[in-house]
């Protein structure tokens, strides 16, 4: 058998599975977006329309898009600010500890997302651990409203996605040739200058990969705004959920999902550009 035929035979079942149960359903979503909801739910296939798109850019829904983007952006920034120095510290740690430290940083990422989010309900609620401790210490006399607001949602997103940022930036730092930074120091640059001019630009690809991951998973998140926002805070993920399970307007839900995929593509494209530029700088 020719080798190309063998490689195609090996790939065929997996690629077919992904095509049938990912590509086709996602294409279906794009098609649904151009139709309207039938009178009794379901889909009215009689005429194509752009009505759903006009509605998505309506003030009400568009502001939810903007809010989601803003919350995702803040979460991304904070995760980078926590993740970068943490990854840097792991890289600077003695070699034999590095694997264990990295493993420890990623481990929470592998546990149940619902449970990691629930843990913050236990900590933040009015009779929760944090309020109890603060009252016990006499710092406050009334419980602080920590849960069911934007603060809690951002905290939950940062908590859940920081491990990935650490992983992405650590792998970028590890690929970095230490002699660049040494040369910079030898030529008289300060540690800060060396970091800003050498290390940071050369690890931009890792930063971009981590940032895109947090942003994309945050903006389309459903569980965190639902559980930590307490239904008071709507993000696109919740809006899509409602269209499918509550309002039963599948075409509109499909339109919102299509726009979410478009946003995701833009983020990935920006990452590709950032990675290309990072490569170009020292090629």
């Amino acid at each position, binding site marked *: 058998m020719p080798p190309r035929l063998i490689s195609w035979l090996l790939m065929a079942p997996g690629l077919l599975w*992904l095509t049938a149960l990912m590509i086709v*359903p996602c294409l*279906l*979503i794009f098609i649904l977006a151009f139709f309207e909801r039938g009178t009794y739910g379901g889909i009215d296939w009689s005429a194509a329309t752009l009505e759903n798109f006009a509605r998505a850019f309506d003030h009400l829904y568009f502001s939810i898009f903007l809010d989601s983007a803003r919350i995702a952006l803040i979460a991304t920034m904070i995760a980078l600010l926590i993740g970068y120095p*943490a990854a840097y510290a792991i890289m600077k740690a003695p070699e034999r500890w590095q694997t264990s430290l990295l493993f420890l940083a990623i481990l929470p990422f592998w*546990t*149940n997302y619902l449970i990691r989010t*629930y843990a913050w309900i236990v900590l933040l609620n009015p009779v929760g651990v944090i309020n109890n401790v603060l009252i016990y210490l006499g710092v406050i006399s009334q419980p602080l409203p920590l849960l069911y607001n934007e603060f809690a949602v951002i905290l939950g997103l940062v908590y859940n996605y920081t491990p990935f940022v650490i992983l992405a930036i650590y792998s970028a730092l590890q690929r970095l040739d230490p002699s660049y930074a040494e040369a910079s120091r030898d030529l008289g640059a300060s540690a800060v200058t060396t970091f800003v001019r050498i290390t940071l630009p050369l690890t931009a690809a890792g930063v971009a990969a981590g940032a895109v991951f947090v942003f994309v998973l945050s*903006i389309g998140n459903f569980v965190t705004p639902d559980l930590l926002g307490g239904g008071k805070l709507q993000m696109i993920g919740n809006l899509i959920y409602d269209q*499918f399970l509550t309002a039963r307007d599948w075409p509109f839900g499909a339109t919102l999902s299509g726009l979410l995929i478009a946003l995701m593509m833009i983020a990935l494209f920006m990452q590709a550009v950032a990675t290309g530029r990072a490569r170009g700088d020292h090629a």
Partner: protein
Amino acid sequence: MPRFLNLHLGATFAFLYIPIAVLIVLSFNKAGLPTAWSGFSVEWYGRLAANPKILASAWNSVIVATISTLIATVLGTLLALGVERANPSPARDALLFAPMIVPDIVLAIALLSFFTLIKFTLGLHSIILAHVVFNIAFVCAVVRARLKGFDWSLTEVSRDLGAGHLVTFRKITLPLILPSVIAAALLAFTLSIDEFIIAYFTAGAGQASTTLPMQIYSMIRFGVTPEINAMASIVMAVSFVLVLLAQRLNRGRMPGA
């Protein structure tokens, strides 16, 4: 500077682990409330074991995770072997990366619409079909990482000595990549048993196809209870053990998602 970095790393680990530690400690608290420590007790764990809804949903999760992992491990490994031999293709790489980055809710509603349109009955089997999607991509990524350093001359020698493709695969390739394949399977099992949104949308109505995360979600929505703390501790312990095993097998190579 190093001192500041180490302090930061310590604080980051505290941030990551304190919430988990609090849950575990509270699950052993007799009164079950976070207000005060009232003595050590395993009462809440006992209550879990006596709750038929939780047991049934846990069993459903085990079925879904086991079958979807088996299918995805076979298809994903074959896929990785094929991809490493084929000409590079950015489009194919994008297809293989997509399931890891498409928001869960989008894949969930896309599959629900698709299954509804083709009038496919929903249940545990549709959750399995859906979970295989992200698990194939994941297994493929882990096995491909291993194959990057694979010495293909070993299989050429085997072929030159007259062994067929299947014998070469069984005697040479498979034993060499097996640790990664098992590691990938353990991680895929972890992903599947913890997955909530896609299962929620593709399960159909009724308790019969409720998985453990769906059960946990409905319990969490009712509020904080000591039973959830106990269940959370068990679920986390299972994930930790599986991931630790995978890490051992894969010798420190640890992909992110």
